[in-house]
């Protein structure tokens, strides 16, 4: 008999008052009992609407049925058929707009907590200590992967399993991409990302860090060096600014800089040598996951935090859970506002942000109602820190140094239905192709590209 409770089993979380003073994970995860109980809410629908909502089509009812039986290993095997980063996606996927959005249980009550179950299964297996992966028989072919974010890591794993000699070239000193430098520890513990990378090393994947493709070597040079195909998963890391007067003032950060200092360079740790400002009042501009993460990091540094977003609560693009967590942590949402200028003191440090009120007008191309400024409604928010989280674009370095690689007008690499770029043998996927998107879509693109690269190289023989 399915469990007909209307709501999800709640996720155990750290108390907000406690967690704003630490960087430990906010959501602590289901116990086995909670997971089994939640799994029983699934109706094993014949037409599986949930599966279509998942960008990599995880066999959702099948894995959940195993969880309900207490067969967590079996569940993991099913998930692994289509996903390679379940511990990560279970934590960070915007489930409410993907798999769970289609769940029939969501029509009357809350959907089945697919993401939490996925996370539980992956955590269970990691804690139990999976048997180390065995290296595939080498097939004698060499391929290169540019960028060690979720797209690159997934492509590397799939190619290694097919017997390719895979080298991942990463610009930073640590692989992981946004998973490492952007998404904070309290949402995605770095040990989990490191564990996934270790699994790839077990599969034989080579990592070359501190290697900026385009400078240390171009893609053409790599191909001359014997890499028969290249996957580009270089992400969309170039931060956008608004070109406001005063944006160059000290104390004004891109979210990437603030998060990199806080996460990758461990500025949250007092013993770290990375400088970071400990603001008293922070204005975060934007409404996506990046804005939520920046706001919550600033909060953990002891600041009062205001999120300034030009639309209303309904349009906030961040994951619902993150918005709720941010609100619990005392972050103030100043919605329907937009900054117009940054004001500085005599030392060149920000002292306030001038904003204007917005109202929602006619819907734009995206179908969302366009925010329009209300004439004469300008007002001032005092602040000693401002974090711009208004999006990122692909870094131009690779396209500038690779003749034959075409991009669209937003600077995103153009690929065909097999993730092949306009240059023979060069594939791409993830944020470098789509612009800033999600971990699971980057992972899905990596998978698809790996399969296509295999086909391409096999047919060349």
């Amino acid at each position, binding site marked *: 008999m399915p469990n007909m409770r209307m709501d999800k089993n709640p996720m155990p979380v750290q108390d907000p008052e406690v967690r704003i003073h630490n960087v430990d994970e906010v959501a602590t995860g289901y116990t086995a009992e909670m997971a089994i109980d939640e799994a029983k809410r699934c109706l094993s629908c014949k037409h599986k609407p949930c599966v279509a909502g998942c960008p990599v089509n995880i066999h959702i009812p099948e894995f959940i049925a195993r969880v309900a039986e207490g067969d967590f290993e079996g569940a993991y095997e099913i998930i692994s058929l289509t996903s390679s980063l379940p511990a990560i996606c279970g934590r960070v996927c915007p489930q409410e707009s993907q798999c769970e959005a289609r769940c029939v249980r969501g029509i009357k009550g809350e959907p089945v907590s697919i993401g939490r179950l996925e996370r539980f299964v992956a955590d269970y297996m990691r804690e139990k200590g999976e048997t180390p992966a065995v290296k595939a028989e080498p097939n004698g072919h060499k391929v290169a992967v540019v960028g060690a974010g979720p797209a690159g890591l997934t492509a590397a794993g799939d190619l290694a399993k097919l017997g390719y000699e895979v080298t991942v070239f990463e610009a930073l*000193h640590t692989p992981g991409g946004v998973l490492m430098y952007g998404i904070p520890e309290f949402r995605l513990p770095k040990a989990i990302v490191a564990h996934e990378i270790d699994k790839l090393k077990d599969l034989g994947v080579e990592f070359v860090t501190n290697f900026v493709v385009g*400078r240390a070597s171009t893609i053409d040079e790599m191909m001359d060096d014997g890499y028969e195909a290249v996957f580009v998963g270089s992400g969309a890391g170039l931060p956008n600014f608004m070109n406001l007067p005063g944006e160059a003032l*000290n104390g004004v950060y891109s979210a*990437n800089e603030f998060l990199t200092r806080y996460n990758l360079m461990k500025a949250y740790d007092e013993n770290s040598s990375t*400088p970071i400002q400990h603001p008293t009042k922070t204005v975060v501009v934007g409404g996506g996951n990046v804005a939520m993460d920046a706001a919550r990091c600033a909060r953990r540094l002891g600041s009062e935090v205001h999120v300034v977003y030009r639309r209303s609560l309904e349009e906030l693009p961040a994951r619902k859970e993150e918005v709720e967590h941010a609100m619990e942590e005392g972050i103030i949402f100043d919605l329907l506002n937009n900054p117009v200028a940054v004001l500085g003191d005599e030392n060149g440090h920000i002292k306030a942000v001038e904003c204007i009120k917005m109202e929602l007008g006619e819907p734009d191309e995206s179908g969302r109602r366009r925010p329009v400024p209300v004439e004469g409604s300008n007002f001032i928010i005092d602040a000693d820190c401002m974090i711009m989280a208004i999006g990122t674009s692909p870094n*131009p370095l690779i396209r500038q140094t690779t003749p034959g690689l075409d991009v669209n007008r937003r600077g995103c690499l153009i690929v065909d239905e097999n993730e092949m770029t306009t240059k023979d043998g060069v594939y791409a996927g993830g944020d470098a192709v789509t612009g800033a998107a999600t971990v699971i879509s980057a992972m899905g693109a990596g998978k698809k590209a790996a399969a296509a690269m295999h086909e391409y190289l096999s047919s060349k023989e």
Partner: protein
Amino acid sequence: MFEITEKRILNPTVEEITVYAPNAAAKAKAGQFIILRTDEDGERIPFTIASADPEKGTVSVIYQIVGAGTRKLSALKQGDSLHDFAGPLGKPSEIEGENVVIIGGGVGCAIAWPTAKAFKQAGKNVTSIVGFRNKDLVILEDEFKDTSDAFYLMSDDGSAGQKGLVTAKLEELIQNGQKIDRVIAIGPLIMMKFVCELTKKYNIPTIVSMNPIMIDGTGMCGGCRLVVDGKMQFACVDGPDFDGHKVDFDAAMKRNRQYLDFEKHKYEEACNLLNKEVDA
């Protein structure tokens, strides 16, 4: 791991290390830089490539000890290894203009010397003007002499070379009618600013090398942003060389002072730490 194969003390606060880093050595060009970390939790510190030997797979950098990070680096000896060494980064310098004047100020000479060398090797006529506060701080004098057709050493107090600022010497050359197609100025922001004000007056194209505070050096954080010609530019990918007549130096000077208090504190900590090690 990147081994320090050689270490040279140039003066009490300036040192040169040669590091085994074949990837960087293979591609390094004048004007580019590297980012290193001494240890696993270290800061990412950018330094200009002073020279590179693709055959030996080594890259040399010259640095001044100014804070906690460079102090930690200075504690390493030949045979020790660096945790990370990423490069080359940034755009190479344009080697253009037949008659160039290269101006180096203080430790900026470490950055200016490889540029002088590159111009010389390209067969250009190179005049170098280097300036220091006093004779104890003079670096790379012989190296500059070797790579310059004319060389002028200046010091604030007259204890080395001629007394006076590099801008005074530059103006003297201009007024004496020396043909100058291009000036390249590398040093403290205030020096570059005054060089640019001078060359603007005489309409001489001037390139400056901008060294703002950086983290990733790959164009990801925006921390190195500058205002150039009214537009935002990232020094690590769009530079570090820029048209000096278009750079907003006043804004850059303010940004460089961002973490002064924090760094002073970390520097004292690092000093205390090293003193303790010495005591023990």
